[in-house]
């Protein structure tokens, strides 16, 4: 009777797609009926419009969802359910021991790395933070020099009202110290103004350090130094002999300074003591970079006021000099926040070698990467494992578990695992700490971890990792449809597959990035250690000269050297002012007659004796060595670079002037360029002067073989010549290697972390391979029946993984190239990055990956097809 009329198809489709399932049937019917009704009353057009409007009104977000009536209470937090979750979690852990172990191990390794690196970064950032006024203390430096001149401090405090106090440090270095009861040891210290007490907030223990530092021949010592030399005796008024020569009296004891600092000292000698050494006109010399000047401001912001008026200050300070030069100097003046010195300052004659902020960044990056790898691994293994529990999830859902409960269950499980691995990580961390201390040269104790902020970091890290790695599996699993998860083994959804593959690729990006970086950094380190330096660093013992022995040696060099040369294993003994890598004196040297208007860069000056070049095997290019037979005090030897800079075509016999020292003399020899500083820097022009009596270091070339006996001989002979002298020595090659300590530390740490990251990635790959093997058991069974050979199967099985690893590698290449290239810019002498390193990383990761999956691969391929096909 009624013509069956149908509403527009597309609107109907829209309805079936988007309307909630549980009310779809009745709404479809109702709307259909309404359509018929309108169609008959008002015709097709009106009916269609109304239908469309009505459909839209029952689509989300407009439609209200029908909530199922809950006949039973559903407490989210019920104790018995929790007990059940816990039990199931434990059972699962124990049931799949290999998985659980990999999972826990991978995560613990990751967290351990994170802990160590966090601690390292914290240490690096903690420099000077223990000084109460650290945000108000600045060092007066310029763009080149960390030191400044003696009169600067006094003038600055008069000129700037914002300065509360100002203090100077002059270097004294490590010294051998003797007490009157002949206790001996080495201690480090400086000369300092009495204002140091105020600026660095030194706490007096005994005596008055402020008064003490104003007296001549007085020193103040730290509590630990007092205990070292005097034990329970009262140290005040005691005499300490420095370097067997200088006698100073202890006037005060201060509290030990805690925390990291670039200014480490056991004692401070008073400035008036220092004044005794130099003539008064030197103390007013505005060009002499004598020591480090630190200002304490009233307010941290005052530094801007100081900077703004620096030009005016320089104009008054250097009044009388050329105006352009003063302005240029003012331009280069800097006030360095004391907290920046350790990480950001790399000037000439720093107090000691500083670190670099670059390394802090690198370590932060590595830490984040390793943590992410560990998380990714955890996600991967946890999801794979959870896929096997689809049935459990299905049953739970059928029995009325809500999604929230499942999320809580799985999130809880992942937290349980992360907490466990957090505990393991702390144990691993305690085991690893001695190694870390060894590598980085710090003394961190295991108890440091109990400090509240470190505990907070650990907890934070565990929670973060737990949340990050638990969140995805929890939501992924709780979304399973109960019906499909209860049906027979279904392969997991492709989206999850894709994600897990993506994660594997990511892990290998990181792993091969780290491999490439490690290899390239290693190559650079190899270059440092093996580059031809222009001298022979092997078999040379370097000893510092001091005290009575030095006096005798300077007075009677022949006699004493002959005494030492009696041993056939001692080849040559040379002397010089500086060791390789030490900051040599910077002086200005010009040819005479000087070309007008030509500027000459400053020279490095080394004072040596006639044997130094022989001992170091530095070849002469032209001319002759210094000799006792000539009077050579006004002769010079220069290096090739210096000859070029001075524009001397025929250097031998040319006259040049050291204007700093005001000496004119003839060039008698030219040495080949040699690296007298570290390879961070280029070879600078060098001037060698013959001043055996100024030298402070002895270079003893010895024969290889029976080195301990030779050293014993040297020690005994020196003791005989000057009793009470400690023979402090080191090998030149060790000393040269020490110049790259910063890079070495990083290289070693990076090596460790790249190995770790590879292990963690492999754990992940192993898990994934196991899972794939399980899923594909039947497929492989069928293939075997159809005649596939073992090699066929292995190929089929492994090609997927090989692809993932290769993709990871290819992504890592440009990243690694960019990063290492940036790092290499730090050095003047650097390696070329060659392509074979990249291929190497690919080969290495591939091999490791193949070995990892090989076990499952072969196991599956060898299994009897009957078994795999029969199981359902």
């Amino acid at each position: 009777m009624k013509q069956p009329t149908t509403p527009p198809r597309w609107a109907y489709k829209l309805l079936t797609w988007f309307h909630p399932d549980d009310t779809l049937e009745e709404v479809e019917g109702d709307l259909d009926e309404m359509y018929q009704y309108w169609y008959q009353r008002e015709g097709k057009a009106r009916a269609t419009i109304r239908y469309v409007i009505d459909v839209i009104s029952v689509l989300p977000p407009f439609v209200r969802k029908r909530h199922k009536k809950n006949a039973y209470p559903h407490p989210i937090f019920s104790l018995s359910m929790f007990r059940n979750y816990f039990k199931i979690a434990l059972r699962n852990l124990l049931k799949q021991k290999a998985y659980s172990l990999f999972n826990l191990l991978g995560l613990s390794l990751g967290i351990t790395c994170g802990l160590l690196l966090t601690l390292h970064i914290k240490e690096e950032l903690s420099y000077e933070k223990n000084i109460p006024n650290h945000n108000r203390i600045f060092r007066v430096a310029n763009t080149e020099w960390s030191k400044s001149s003696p009169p600067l401090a006094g003038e600055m405090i008069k000129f700037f009202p914002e300065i509360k106090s100002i203090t100077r440090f002059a270097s004294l270095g490590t010294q051998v110290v003797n007490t009157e009861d002949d206790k001996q040891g080495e201690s480090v210290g400086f000369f300092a103004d009495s204002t140091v007490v105020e600026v660095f907030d030194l706490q007096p223990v005994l005596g008055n350090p402020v008064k003490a530092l104003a007296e001549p021949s007085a020193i103040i010592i730290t509590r630990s130094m007092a205990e070292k030399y005097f034990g329970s005796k009262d140290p005040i008024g005691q005499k300490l002999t420095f370097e067997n020569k200088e006698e100073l009296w202890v006037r005060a004891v201060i509290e030990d300074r805690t925390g990291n600092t670039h200014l480490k000292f056991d004692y401070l000698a008073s400035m008036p003591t220092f004044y005794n050494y130099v003539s008064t006109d030197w103390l007013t010399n505005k060009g002499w970079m004598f020591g480090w000047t630190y200002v304490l401001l009233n307010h941290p912001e005052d530094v801007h006021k100081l900077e703004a008026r620096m030009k005016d200050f320089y104009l008054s300070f250097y009044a009388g000099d050329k105006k352009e030069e003063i302005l240029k100097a003012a331009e280069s003046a800097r006030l360095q926040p004391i907290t920046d010195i350790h990480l950001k300052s790399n000037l000439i004659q720093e107090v000691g070698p500083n670190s670099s902020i670059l390394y802090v960044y690198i370590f932060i990056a590595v830490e984040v990467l390793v943590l992410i790898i560990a998380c990714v691994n955890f996600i991967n293994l946890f999801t794979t494992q959870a896929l096997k529990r689809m049935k459990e999830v299905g049953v739970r859902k059928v029995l009325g578990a809500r999604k929230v409960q499942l999320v809580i269950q799985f999130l809880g499980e992942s937290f349980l695992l992360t907490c466990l691995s957090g505990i393991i990580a702390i144990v691993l961390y305690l085991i690893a700490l001695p190694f870390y201390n060894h590598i980085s040269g710090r003394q961190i104790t295991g108890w440091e971890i109990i400090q509240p902020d470190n505990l907070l970091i650990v907890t934070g890290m565990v929670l973060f990792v737990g949340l990050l790695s638990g969140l995805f599996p929890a939501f992924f699993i709780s979304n399973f449809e109960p019906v499909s998860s209860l049906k027979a083994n279904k392969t997991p959804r492709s989206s999850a597959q894709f994600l897990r593959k993506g994660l594997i690729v990511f892990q290998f990006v990181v792993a091969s990035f780290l491999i490439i970086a490690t290899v390239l950094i290693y190559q650079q380190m190899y270059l440092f250690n093996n580059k031809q330096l222009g001298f022979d660093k092997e078999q040379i013992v370097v000893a510092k000269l001091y005290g009575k022995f030095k006096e005798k040696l300077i007075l009677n060099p022949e006699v004493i050297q002959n005494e030492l040369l009696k041993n056939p294993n001692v080849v040559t003994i040379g002397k010089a002012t500086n060791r390789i890598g030490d900051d040599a004196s910077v002086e200005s040297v010009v040819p005479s007659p000087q070309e007008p208007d030509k500027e000459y860069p400053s020279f490095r000056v080394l004072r040596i004796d006639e044997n130094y070049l022989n001992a170091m095997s530095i070849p002469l290019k032209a001319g002759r060595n210094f000799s006792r037979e000539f009077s050579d005090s006004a002769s010079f030897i220069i290096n090739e670079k210096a000859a070029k800079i001075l524009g001397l075509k025929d250097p031998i016999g040319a006259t040049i002037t050291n204007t700093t020292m005001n000496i004119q003399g003839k060039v008698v020899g030219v040495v080949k360029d040699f690296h007298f500083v570290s390879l961070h820097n280029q070879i600078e022009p060098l001037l060698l002067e013959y001043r055996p009596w100024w030298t402070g270091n002895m270079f003893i070339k010895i024969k290889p073989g029976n080195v301990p006996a030779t050293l014993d001989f040297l020690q005994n002979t020196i003791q005989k010549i000057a009793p009470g002298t400690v023979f402090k020595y080191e090998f030149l090659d060790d000393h040269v290697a020490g110049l790259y300590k910063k890079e070495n530390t990083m290289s070693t740490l990076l090596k460790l972390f790249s190995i770790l990251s590879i292990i963690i990635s492999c754990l992940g790959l192993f898990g994934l391979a196991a899972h794939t093997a399980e899923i594909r058991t039947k497929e492989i069974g069928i293939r075997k029946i159809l005649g596939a050979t073992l090699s066929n199967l292995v190929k089929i099985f492994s090609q997927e993984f090989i692809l993932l690893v290769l993709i990871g590698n290819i992504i890592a290449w440009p990243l690694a190239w960019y990063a290492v290239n940036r790092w290499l810019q730090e050095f003047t002498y650097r390696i070329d990055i060659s392509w074979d390193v990249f291929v190497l990383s690919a080969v290495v990761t591939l091999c490791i990956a193949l070995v990892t999956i090989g076990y499952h691969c072969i196991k599956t391929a060898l299994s009897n097809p009957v078994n795999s096909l029969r199981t359902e």
Partner: protein
Amino acid sequence: MRRTYLGELEEMILLMVAILDGEAYGVTVSQQLEQHTGRQLTFGTVHNTLIRLEEKGFVASHLGGATTERGGRRKRFFTLTALGSRALQDVQELRNQLWQMVPPHALQVNGL
């Protein structure tokens, strides 16, 4: 006095369910509403209100048997629950009380 809150639309639709007496489902409710009050509502509004009333416990619903009508799709019938009828009576009682409190002249003024 415990009062159940009923919105104006909810009250209307609840009344329609009472009027239809067992024959109430989406289509009949919206048609009745249109006939008696002249209001044309989208179907979604009616649908949502019915669900809300059910959540509040004023109506109960059950699916009717399958018929040959409308492609065999079942209808969801709504019936008034005791709580629903109580709510309607409450509303009416309240209105009556309020009406009685209105002074007669006030209405006359308004009516003019």
